């Protein structure tokens, strides 16, 4: 499981406050805590209300870089903010994200090549989010093709995100996403990776943590390899690690939870 820690996001109150006050310590602590808990990479999002997104992104990345060299997922829809974040974070970063829209692909794929970054591609196109798995897979294929056209032939650098929506908004989507996860593995050989913005599934629900971890396990069983999620939710992490154990992706031992976390920490 490749965990991209979601906590450094201006949507969260503590991060928004830290951004406004330029309180670096809050950010550094969040970065360290997430990695300590087993995150492989950290998402960085300035939040929707940021007045100066570019400067804020650069400040966030600089601050995080004071404590870790872990890959950062620069989370923005704005190309200039993306470019500034990638330049500051260095090679091996993750573009979060492009969609399958031609105009987005034309911007973000070359940017990925320029900065030796990985890319998350959302299965959205000019018509929006498809209603079913077939529509999602079709867009996924377009994203794979665009990656190849731009010289990204290592499919380890491409994450396809079939977009999970809140279960209280649409209850058919979790199944469509699982069907897509299974199909995406057949798009190329070797296959691209898959990722979900997991917490979206429980947005606005009363039992967020339970829904998150139940769906994480289901999605892993359908082939999910990476998730943007909260690594500080210990039960969520434990459920994901255990799901991979049961799929024989890790060798069992009594302390397999510790083994997983120490393996991640030692790189």
């Amino acid at each position, binding site marked *: 499981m490749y965990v991209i820690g979601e906590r450094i996001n201006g949507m969260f109150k503590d991060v928004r406050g830290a951004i406004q006050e330029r309180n670096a310590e809050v950010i550094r602590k969040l970065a360290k805590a997430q990695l300590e808990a087993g995150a492989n990479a950290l998402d960085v999002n300035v939040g929707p209300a940021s007045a100066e997104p570019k400067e804020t992104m650069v400040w966030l990345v600089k601050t995080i870089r004071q404590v870790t060299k872990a890959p950062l997922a620069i989370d923005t829809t704005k190309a200039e903010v993306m470019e500034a974040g990638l330049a500051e974070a260095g090679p091996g970063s993750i573009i979060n994200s492009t969609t399958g829209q031609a105009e987005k692909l034309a911007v973000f794929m070359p940017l990925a090549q320029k900065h030796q970054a990985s890319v998350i591609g959302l299965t959205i196109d000019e018509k929006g989010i498809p209603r079913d798995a077939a529509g999602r897979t079709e867009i996924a294929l377009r994203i794979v093709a665009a990656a190849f056209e731009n010289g990204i032939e290592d499919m380890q650098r491409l994450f396809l995100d079939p977009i999970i929506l809140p279960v209280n908004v649409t209850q058919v989507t979790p199944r469509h996403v699982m069907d897509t996860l299974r199909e995406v593995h057949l798009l190329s050989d070797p296959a691209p990776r898959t990722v979900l913005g997991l917490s979206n599934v429980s947005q606005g629900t009363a039992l967020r943590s339970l829904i998150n971890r139940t769906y994480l396990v289901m999605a892993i069983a359908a082939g999910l390899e990476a998730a943007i999620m909260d690594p500080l939710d210990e039960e969520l992490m434990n459920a994901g690690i255990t799901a991979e154990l049961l799929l024989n992706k*890790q*060798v*069992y*031992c*009594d*302390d*397999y939870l*510790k*083994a997983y976390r*120490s*393996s991640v920490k*030692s790189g």
Partner: protein
Amino acid sequence: MGFEIPVEKWASAVNTVALGATAAEGGTRTGKITLGGETTLPFLHFEGEIPNRPVVAMEVLDLEPQAWPEVLSAPFAGVLNDPAAWAKKCVEEYGAEMICLRLSSAHPDSLNTGPEQAATTVKKVLGAVGVPLIVWGCGNADKDTEIMPRASEASAGENCLLGSATQDNYKTITAACLADGHKLITEAPIDINIQKQVNILVTEMGLDPGRIVMFQATGGLGYGMEYAYSIMERTRLAALGGDKMLSMPMLAVVGQEAWKAKEAKSLEADAPQWGSEKERGPLWEAMTATSFLQGGTDILVMWHPKAVEMVKGTIDGLMKK
């Protein structure tokens, strides 16, 4: 169209472990040995790196073996009651790259010797040879807890490999290892899950994973070798796949296991259909060792000089690119 060899791209590498401390590092060894570092399965030079060749350690017991057949004891005539002389012969005449000193006499069923004797023997052997040392207890948990701290102290700073930590008995030896700057053998009974668990337990005590060599209780040819082999292979696959708690180099105890087999030690007079034990015995040991090489073993602990010679020759061939 030409045939293209399929090449697997592995995520990770086996840890590199250095053994032996020279004068420059505060020890008295004349040479060092580096193990591990593989980025591919055994000897697939076309696929990845095998930066360090597997090494052969010859085993020396601290008491004269009682049940050894003539074919095995003859090459060591006159030195089997003197571990220092035995070790020296192994290195100088038989090309041992390391010595594995087994403190067997401490076992309660044997002579029940104490920690002071263990320390004295370790010092004598260190004085007799310049190669890095493996120092292994007697196999009785309570007794090893008593003797290994002294054996460790007596060889402090020499960067030895101490054996062994098990799931039920790891604290004392790990602490000794940490205190005296040694490396540690973690042992499991042909069980990959327990192997991983022991590795976690000792690293939780603060021992760096880079100071561990793994040992799955070996089985000799015809006596469970394939179980140990397949566990080793699976362990190596896990290491290359990125499992940091199974990424350590591996050791196999070959001599002891191979020579338990009646096929190795029976006399020609008793089993004429099997031919001369003078060839059969060493071959049995060499075959066991060669199989473990293919499972990913980095240190082979061996007995018979002829088997050692054959296996070193095999390693030469396997390391050619």
